[in-house]
């Protein structure tokens, strides 16, 4: 592949800017909100109330069973006909958070279930309520188990945010596409965008390692 190095060099600026002003904040905001939502949904799925757990199951099924592109589309272009007109950024954050919520809910649910039942019982025997046991005993342990799968969700999210350009949010990949459209050098620009994504993911992976080491300090090695 003969690459146009001048073009690649000069387009680093816009692409990295797109990452910093678009991709990264969008990813972070959606991930944080999505995690909170996922915890809620995971607890709903674990509820003994069939309606509550049914609602949660349906939500997870729809989110995981339909394309993210369509989810974005519905929130940005579909909701206005129901009188809800959100700006691009709020729409994007809502859509990606809902998406993370669906995927991460299953991870968190599995992590909660992976904590031995004896831990709940130990919480109860010292007088804790279900909520207290969950908060102080179960979730801190579930956190450890769920870091690797959640970081997968995180890394997928980084790349998925490129879809936000469909709803007018400017980010890394959109900037690469713009330059590609001007220069007709789409291969070079896409490779360059991929490189920047890769660097972001490498940074995330090393962050994951640090976090895992921190959370692993209380288990035998």
């Amino acid at each position, binding site marked *: 592949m003969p690459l146009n190095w001048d073009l690649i060099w000069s387009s680093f600026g816009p692409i990295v800017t797109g990452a910093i002003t678009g991709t990264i904040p969008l990813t972070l905001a959606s991930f944080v909100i999505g995690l909170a939502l996922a915890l809620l949904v995971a607890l709903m799925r674990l509820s003994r109330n069939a309606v509550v757990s049914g609602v949660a199951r349906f939500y997870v099924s729809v989110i995981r069973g339909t394309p993210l592109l369509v989810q974005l589309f519905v929130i940005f272009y579909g909701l206005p006909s129901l009188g809800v007109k959100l700006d691009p950024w709020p729409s994007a954050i809502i859509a990606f958070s809902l998406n993370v919520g669906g995927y991460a809910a299953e991870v968190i649910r599995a992590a909660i279930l992976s904590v*031995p039942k*004896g*831990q709940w*019982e*130990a919480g*109860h*025997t*010292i*007088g*804790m*309520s279900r909520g*207290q046991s969950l908060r*102080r*005993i179960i979730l*801190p*342990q579930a956190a*450890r188990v769920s870091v690797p799968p959640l970081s997968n969700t995180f890394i997928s999210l980084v790349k998925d945010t490129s879809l936000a350009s469909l709803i007018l949010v400017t980010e890394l990949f959109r900037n690469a596409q713009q330059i590609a459209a001007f220069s007709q050098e789409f291969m070079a620009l896409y490779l360059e965008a991929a490189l920047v994504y890769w660097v972001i993911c490498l940074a995330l992976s090393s962050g994951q390692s640090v976090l895992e080491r921190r959370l692993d*300090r*209380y*288990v*035998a090695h």
Partner: protein
Amino acid sequence: MSPTDGAAHSGAHGATSQARPVLSVRNLAKAFGSNVVLRDIDLDVRRGNVVALIGPSGSGKTTVLRSLNGLETPDAGTVTFAGPGTSAGPGTDLALDFSARVSKKEISDLRDRSAMVFQHYNLFPHMTVLQNVIEGPVQVQKRKRAEAVAEAEKLLARVGLADKRDAYPFELSGGQQQRVGIVRALALKPQLLLFDEPTSALDPELVGDVLAVIQELADEGWTMVIVTHELAFARQVADEVIFMDGGLVVERGPAAEVLRAPRQERTRQFVRRLLHEF
């Protein structure tokens, strides 16, 4: 390290002088689906007494303990704790009738009366030894942290673990973990201590240390129910031995009688098997 009510007691082996037992269980029954696990269990434990629960696997010993600690909800029967709870519990008797619906509040009150020591310790792996011990007093009983720490340190020193204060459970041997488990229960100052096979997950050499601690607690007058397979230990520590089989109390009486000269054939068989004369 003494029973929290601080009352004098008549020693581990004598009959206590008090008329009303601390714990009184009548007609306790429990089934899991079609599997009837407890039928009509009666149990009285007097203050300062030690009751040993023995019996074959599946006979329902664990289910009895779990019912007393509110970890299992029986289908029928009554559980009564006498007098004011020792910690933040209510001021008078606690009487639960499982034939009727019991509320969350009642289960919670029941839990406050006793504390369980588990076979597999069930320490909180993400907390240090000290944090494990003060978690209940501080988070549940809302006691002052400094006070809880001081007390925890005293208890830890008492079981020989003062220097392990800041260790994580995984850094301890099984016997050390179980001693922390005992201290965690003691720190709650419950009316009743429940032990479910506290030494059966331990390396044989580590069993002695834990049994010694339990023996000391008995000598100090703590009220306890202990499920155990260590017959020699039961004989030495228990005021009363109860032999269960198939969800029924088959035989009960002073340790020496039940273990040395069982009246029932089933008890005799069980004792023989445990000494595994292959």
